[in-house]
């Protein structure tokens, strides 16, 4: 309680705009006068963007082919049996018109849950950034892919690495009955930061020595340091296929970038003609009712083909315009009696 003896100036509340709740304030009113033109403008802008998106999306060529071999007549049916090892199958297809380049080559998996919680955390970033201590003592997150049966540490440990997609593809154009290899570019398929900063190989040279005392993931045919022996910049943990796989997908049906077709005769795209895709079929998916596919696509400024965005913009845009018209009518009806 304030004592009476205090001078008045102490007791009297400050007469400032803040204390008197009279700060200057902007008091926006969403009136029809603003909303209706605003909606028209937004609507038109959205329709514009929507048209652009839609047209762009339409112009993107995309070729999707399932090669799981689920049906008996599909070319990879023979490989879908897990007992068959080192199975190869060919997927033949033809392109009617020029498939404009650069063409991006994706592989896709369905009903595959890379976003399982336990799966997602089942890796050891310390290992993957080249920390040798973590080689011999992988994090327990990697379990049950932490140690092998002989209690040797697995490098790279964890479910993500262990389940790395290991089908390989070779694309041939069949020119006059002769198979002509289409060069596939495996660079630039992973995020730049993943490749250059986040993941690192151990500094030990040769790389192989760093892996002494460790074993390769159980599912891998060869150890990490032999992922791409031809190119040290694409070997070990910075192998781009590996990095792409490590970036776990958001949804159970996903596709991942496999290669780009940017070189040689195919820099302009895949010319019309017959093609044959030679698949080394290693990756079993039927056990969990999964599907595998390959996707050829070119991209635009908006990325891959995506009809949703364009249609959404068109719908919302026209909705805005319609709304503004409705509002105008409503206003015409209600405003006049008010003015009487």
């Amino acid at each position: 309680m304030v004592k009476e003896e205090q001078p008045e100036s102490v007791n009297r509340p400050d007469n400032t705009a803040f204390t008197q709740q009279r700060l200057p304030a902007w008091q926006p009113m969403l009136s029809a006068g603003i909303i209706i033109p605003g909606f028209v403008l937004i609507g038109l802008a959205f329709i514009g963007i929507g048209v652009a998106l839609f047209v762009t999306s339409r112009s993107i060529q995309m070729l999707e082919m399932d090669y799981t071999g689920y049906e008996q007549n599909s070319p990879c049916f023979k490989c879908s049996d897990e007992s068959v090892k080192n199975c190869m199958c060919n997927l033949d297809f033809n392109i009617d018109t020029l498939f404009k380049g650069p063409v991006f080559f994706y592989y896709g998996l369905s009903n595959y849950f890379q976003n399982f919680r336990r799966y997602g955390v089942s890796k050891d970033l310390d290992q993957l950034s080249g920390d040798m201590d973590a080689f011999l003592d992988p994090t327990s997150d990697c379990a049950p892919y932490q140690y092998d049966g002989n209690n040797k540490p697995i490098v790279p440990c964890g479910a993500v690495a262990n389940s790395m997609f290991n089908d390989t593809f070779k694309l041939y154009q069949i020119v006059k009955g002769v198979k002509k290899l289409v060069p596939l570019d495996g660079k630039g398929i992973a995020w730049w930061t993943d490749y250059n900063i986040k993941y690192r190989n151990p500094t030990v040279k040769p790389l192989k020595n760093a892996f002494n005392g460790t074993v390769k993931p159980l599912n891998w045919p060869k150890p990490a340091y032999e992922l791409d022996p031809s190119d040290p910049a694409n070997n070990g943990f910075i192998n781009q296929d590996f990095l792409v796989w490590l970036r776990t997908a958001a949804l159970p049906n996903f596709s991942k970038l496999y290669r780009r077709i940017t070189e040689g005769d195919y820099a302009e795209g895949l010319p019309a003609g017959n093609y044959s895709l030679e698949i080394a079929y290693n990756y079993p998916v039927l056990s969990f009712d999964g599907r595998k596919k390959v996707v050829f696509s070119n991209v635009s400024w908006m990325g891959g083909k995506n009809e949703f965005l364009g249609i959404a913009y068109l719908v919302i845009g026209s909705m805005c315009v319609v709304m503004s018209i409705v509002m105008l009518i409503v206003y015409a009806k209600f405003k006049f009696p008010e003015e009487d």
Partner: protein
Amino acid sequence: MLRRRLNRLLGRDERIADRRTIYVGHRSGSTNDAIIPPKFCDNRIVSSKYTVWNFLPKNLFEQFRRIANFYFLIIFLVQVIVDTPTSPVTSGLPLFFVITVTAIKQGYEDWLRHKADNEVNKYPVTVIEDGRRIRKESEKIKVGDVVQVEEEETFPCDLILLQTSRDDDTCFVTTASLDGESNHKTHYTVPDTGRDLESLNATIECEQPQPDLYKFVGRMHIYTSNQDPAMRSLGPENLLLKGATLKNTQRISGVAVYTGMETKMALNYQGKSQKRSAVEKSINAFLLVYLCILVSKALVCTTLKYAWQGTPGQDEPWYNEKTQTVKETNFYLKMFTDFLSFMVLFNFIIPVSMYVTVEMQKFLGSFFITWDKDFFDPEIKEGALVNTSDLNEELGQVEYVFTDKTGTLTQNNMEFIECCIDGFQYKYRDASSELDGFCVTDGPVSKLQQKAGREREELFLRALCLCHTVQVKEPIECHDQGDGLMDQVDGLEADGQETSSLQEQRGFIASSPDEVALVKGAMRYGFTFLGLESKTMKILNRNNAVEMYELLHVLNFDPVRRRMSVIVRSKSGDILLFCKGADSSMFPRVRQEEVERIRMHVERNATEGYRTLCVAYKYLSAEEYNQADKGLREARLALQDRDEKLMAVYNQVETGMSLIGATAVEDRLQEEAAETMMALQGAGINVWVLTGDKMETAKSTCYACRLFQRNTELLELTVRTLEDGGRRREKRLHDLLNEYYKKAVLDAPPVKGGVTRSWSSTNQDYGFIIDGATLSMVLNSSESNSSRYKNLFLQICQNCTAVLCCRMAPLQKAQIVKMVKNSKGSPITLSIGDGANDVSMILEAHVGIGIKGKEGRQAVRNSDYAITKLKHLKKLLLVHGHLYYVRIAHLVQYFFYKNLCFILPQFLYQFFCGYSQQPLFDAAYLTMYNICFTSMPILAYSLFEQHISIEVLLDNATLYREIAKNAMLRWGPFLQWTLLSLYHGLLFFFGVRFLFSNPALQDNGQVFGNWSFGTIIFTVLIFTVTLTLALDTRHWTWINHFVIWGSLAFYVFFSFFWGGIIWPFLKHQRLYFVFANMLSSVSTWLVIILLILLSLMPEILLTVFCKPRGSNARQRKLVQSSVGDLQSPRSSARPLLMRTFSDESNTVI
């Protein structure tokens, strides 16, 4: 509390044990007894709750007793124990933050208390031990110590005054820090103790400590050698309370009777019972709903998870095998663990920071009340006072106002208007009209005789001068002149003009302003009270001669007797008793033939709104006096039932008096009382006047305040109406109740929407009047169907525009408040009063408001809010209350909204990740969402929002009705908000999910992973949630701009920062460059813009669609209302808010 209850319990059973014996100076009473020093507590005051050692455990314990905190603790523990999707940090950090902030606040408050305690406890005091003066720390004082206190010092404990430096065995104290009364109070030494303290051998027997500041009974046995112990009674006038300050007295000595926590101050310190606001109840209800949502979400997910896993291949695909331990875990345990994991994943749906934000909002928001300069009263130089900030929003929900009359509706600034002596009316006119200014204006009884006899006049005026407990305030400078005052007065005979002007300036201090008015009134007629010196009252009479009267006894005023008396002995030796009191208590005690002459005047004065008092006297023969004297002394010495015994003696003495006359004192209405009352009624608030005053006076005040209007039909239920029929009173009461019920409730057209009264209606207005006696009949009716009548009574009252309850005892006021409070629909009640008699109703009502008036500070101390004038109530309710309610209601709804749309995408994601509890958002986002990204804008909103400007709110009381009955926190608006958050959550998730049907979103063909997915959703979420608030903000101060745009900027900045660095303490670096990559994709930009716009669209649309109709309706209403209360029509109130899903609710945000 427990101790008090225990004491009370013990007191009832064995009253003897209910007293303590104190050995003054620790000397045993009779010399041969060895002292067994009784154990009393030491003089340490402990108001602090914690010590350094127990702060942490005790504070944590207190905090975790709150349900929300406990809930988060459980979640945290689950996260620590069970393998859960999010790390314990995500819920631990916000909890830690909340707990720390609260602990710091409470620790700081406790530190302040410690400091204050130490200041008191270490204060040096002088104790007299064996004749030596010893300096001690205050906390070392023991009961029985003789303590010396100097002028301007505060008393270190409760003392019995033994010795004073003043000659007249008195000392003056102020109790400003106890009850706020700053006037000087006189206390008396115990007779025969003062002379020689060293050799004083005495014991004191007194009651056990009790918190009533104004009650004390005890007696002192003084042992002198060879004589029987003398016994002296002790009363509150001998007791100096700890905390009071010694004034105008150089030094006193006293013996400590109560120390430390047993002093009356400490006993009064106990915290008031916590009042909880209706908003908090709503919060708890909503919380419960959200808990249900949470549990059902977790259940659904768990069920689906196991159903889904049942299909072959899904439970354990080859790429994601389970560990050995998981495989070995019991199936049901696994299920339970999964359930807990889902709970943890979705736990953010319960807004952890809401309680903190709400508390912060209340605490900070309440400053606007204290800061409001409109509440500042230049007279007493004080503004409004907020004693609790918990009830701010309750001010916007008031449905019933219970107001005291005296000092609240009226100024309690009494002015003597007229008097009547022997049936002749005397009215004061300017001195010019007649020589002594004492003229007769009306002589209704006999035209012949113009004046009562001079004898009677003077007797009457002497009675006014003597029958009171007024003190003369001595001007400080002439304080030490003391005796000189006498000479001065004598010497002034020559110059009467100057005398009177000097006398006019003289201040009087009294417990009741009526007394001052009467003494001043007598002064105007030539009889001046000069003061009381050593039991002698001096009066300056019309001939400027000083008359002396020896004051023998004061028979104090009490509200039950409703009168007071003095017994004086005049110089001639006559013993006279003067008595003044309320007519009802006086008339039965005087001769009946005198009554008739006076009664008419009294009644007329009462109808004019004056307070009337009757004055009577009687001569006491020596024998009668001796008898009375003996009776009074005995009663005063009694240790038990002293009050009852005194009362009996009083009643015995105050009989057979003769009535001289009556006085009329005007109590002016408070400034703008009528306007305030009208505004309250316009706001749909029922105003009840609860007063102890008599019906006629109260009724006229009600008319003056326009609570009753000319066309108001009054329904009376008083003792008088009950006696009309000559039948049994209860029967008559029930008949009347039925009749009124039929009239006011059944025949009245139903009032729309529960709003109690609309100004525009042409219905008959009813006013209801009831008095205390009748009320107790209604409430305590002996008959079996009493509850029916109570119910009838309540319904009648609720249908009346104004209710007047007169002749109320303080407890009855509280009873009424309680009855209304607990009636159907449990309306929010507000009590406003200024006096001690209003404390009970102030404590009882939902909101208690004290007026810093003239009747001390008890009301203010016990109130939730204190204001200086009644007129401030209007702004307090209509503006502050309204704004606080709207702010906090929006705050609460928004909090639930933002958390539901935060967690809904997370829930939906479970359907796409195999129910594996995969979090959609990164842990940092989960943690920071509530405490950083979205907390500041809503806090700023809830502090500064003014959806309607202050002026409009003040001018249009009807706006208050739009938020009545918790309008913004009912299930309707809650459902709307929930639907909105569902819409937003679904939109966010599926919008981005469809975008991700092709995860190649960059022009380099690279794909986005799950963290990009979550981050896009989170970005949309942050922007939408903040912009939704921005749309609702009607009042953009720079602070709002700063926090809204600042929060968004902070989010962007933080995301870059968080994703831009490899944080060494993180295991997975999930967000590394995710945000930057996201922004490099055009599609992502487009989808973010699209989703934000789509989310905000319904709100914008509804604003526009609802507004024309809404503002139309409002204008019509306003025009009507202004016709009703004859104000100039308001052309347009700024249309209200947004968030509207229906026309009905468009007044609601």
